[in-house]
């Protein structure tokens, strides 16, 4: 969110600083395939990730969280913004100059089977990136490194000559993590990396990610829709809705006292595991509007239980909250004075 929000206790420059990121996709039509509309997948998004820390980017499907992850690596090309990483703006660099920096940011996707070439042996899958980036002097040395990496993710090194289909889903995801670690990244983007796994297997992968962070000082950008996972592993949370970050803050504070009505609705909807309470409640009605035609004013106003006149016409800026910021007029000190019209949609 707004870089103007200062954070006590964090003196060093952040590992990753994203400013005003905008990634729109054209909707083309006609013989000339001219863009007739734009899907505003990511629309003026700013955030930062500190070295060795975890920022969770959460939101429901279509909110743009996956596009943010891909934009950082320029797997899709953003139209505007800055992505500062290790002293360089990744979006301003020519593609050739990007490669050495890309090694330091790795990404792990939801479906490990789609990320692993089924015709390659695990040894070659893990060593592929090392070869590309010139890590290791010889094939033998790289094989040794692969063995160590597999050991680290709790896969028997002697299994390195097998193919991906011979492994279970959880093991495949650990192979993807080993593949990413081979390049000694400082930032790992995990895009729904544990979402496809059964809960008993998910816990194995989450424990591994936690241990790796402590040992290697890795930073994570954890993109997920699973709020239980977020609360468990994130230091800070950014909540996205329709292409924008609507609230950002420290994990515990955000879960205890969510400031934005969308964050409140999201947290209220999560099923409770306490047998003494059946607590999940549908706070918001209706569906998310289309990102190609986001509502004017506050993008959440069509579903917000507290909507008032100003929300429909004016886009709220980021207001400071105790541990971060939130885009909601309810936090504008001027609004606290003014009586509401109380209307609802």
């Amino acid at each position, binding site marked *: 969110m707004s870089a103007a929000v200062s954070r006590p206790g964090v003196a060093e420059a952040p590992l990753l600083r994203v400013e005003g990121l905008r990634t729109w996709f054209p909707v083309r039509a006609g013989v000339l395939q001219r863009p007739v509309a734009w899907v505003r997948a990511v629309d003026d998004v700013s955030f930062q990730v500190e070295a060795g820390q975890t920022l969770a980017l959460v939101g429901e499907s279509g909110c743009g969280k996956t596009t943010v992850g891909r934009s950082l690596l320029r797997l899709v090309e953003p139209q505007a913004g800055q992505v500062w990483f290790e002293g360089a703006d990744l979006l301003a660099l020519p593609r050739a100059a990007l490669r050495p920096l890309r090694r330091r940011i790795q990404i792990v996707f939801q479906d490990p089977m789609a990320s692993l070439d089924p015709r390659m042996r695990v040894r070659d899958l893990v060593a592929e990136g090392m070869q590309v980036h010139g890590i290791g002097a010889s094939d033998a040395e790289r094989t040794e490194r692969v063995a160590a990496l597999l050991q680290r993710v709790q896969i028997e090194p002697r299994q390195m000559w097998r193919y991906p289909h011979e492994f279970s889903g959880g093991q495949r995801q650990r192979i993807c993590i080993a593949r990413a670690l081979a390049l000694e990244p400082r930032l790992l983007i995990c895009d729904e990396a544990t979402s496809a796994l059964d809960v008993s297997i998910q*816990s194995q992968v989450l424990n591994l990610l936690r241990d790796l962070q402590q040992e290697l000082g890795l930073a994570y950008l954890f993109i997920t829709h699973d709020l239980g996972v977020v609360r468990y592993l994130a230091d800070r949370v950014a909540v996205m809705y329709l292409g924008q970050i609507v609230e950002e803050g420290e994990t515990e504070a955000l879960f205890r006292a969510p400031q934005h009505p969308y964050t409140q609705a999201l947290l209220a*909807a999560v*099923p*409770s595991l306490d*047998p003494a309470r059946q607590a999940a409640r549908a706070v*918001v009605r209706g*569906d998310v509007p289309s990102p190609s035609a986001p509502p004017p004013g506050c993008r959440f106003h069509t579903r917000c239980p507290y909507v008032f006149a100003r929300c429909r016409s004016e886009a709220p800026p980021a207001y400071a909250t105790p541990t971060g910021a939130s885009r909601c007029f309810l936090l504008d000190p001027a609004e606290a004075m003014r009586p509401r019209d109380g209307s609802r949609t």
Partner: protein
Amino acid sequence: MSERALEVEGLVVTFPGETGRTPVVDHLDLVLDAGETLALVGESGCGKSMTALSLLRLVPKPGRIEEGRIRIEGQDVLSLPIADLRSLRGRRAAMIFQEPMTSLNPVHTVGAQVVEAIRLHERVSAGEARRRAGELFARVGIPDPGARLDAYPHQLSGGMKQRVMIAIALAAKPRLLIADEPTTALDVTIQAQILDLLRDLRRDSGMALLLITHDLGIVNEVADRVAVMYAGQLVEQGSREAVLGKPRHPYTQGLLRSIPARAARGARLTEIRGSVPSASAWPTGCRFHPRCPIAFEPCPRIDPGWTELGGGQRARCHAIAREFSA
């Protein structure tokens, strides 16, 4: 004594494997009373979806129901002629699935599909059926129901499509609704709306609900009773409060402990070691023994069988059996 909506005894479903037919559901027993919600929980490959499909004889080939008895409102499903099976499906029991898009016909309006479902089971005029379809849409919380009847499936969001599927399922006023992961493909705010709807329907109609899910949070939100499935068998059964609050089987305990939402931030999660076995390689004895932290001498050799724990709770575990016989 309330009315039995569903009774399953000794159900065995097999698929062909490398060494002959392999049971994916192995001697499963279930009972469900009218107005009650039973959650059947387990991880992928445990056989929970196959169990659900077999209740309406929908097991896809080359799968086959090998033995057992299924009664829906007292009617024996497995001995029913095909012609009578059609009136059983829909009128006595209906089913909804995870992916509403694959269950709806893309070339017909959703209204036409609800009207078809109504007229399949009842002789009413087209106009009357359409009026009732509108009522059903309103009942499942579809805004502007009259206009939505003329929409095609692709024009509706995932949550709306699932509501349409529920409306179709309710068309013939079934006494048993089987819901297989009905909210898994939906976002959490939409999931909460559908869970609210299922709770309301049960309260208002006295319909029995069999909910198949992998999500223990959803179980806690809607179930009265819980049956936990592992490797083709039930391993623990009981009330929602008992199974989620005082789980006895090591697998149920492990599942609950490995959920990150219940763990302290940054603390190590409890893992269940190893991975879920496949149907072609169910372990001998207790099927959970290779992953169990408290497995002992009899576990790899002998099927533990049920131990009754009181209050309707029971578990299939040697350690519990020993504790209770001592």
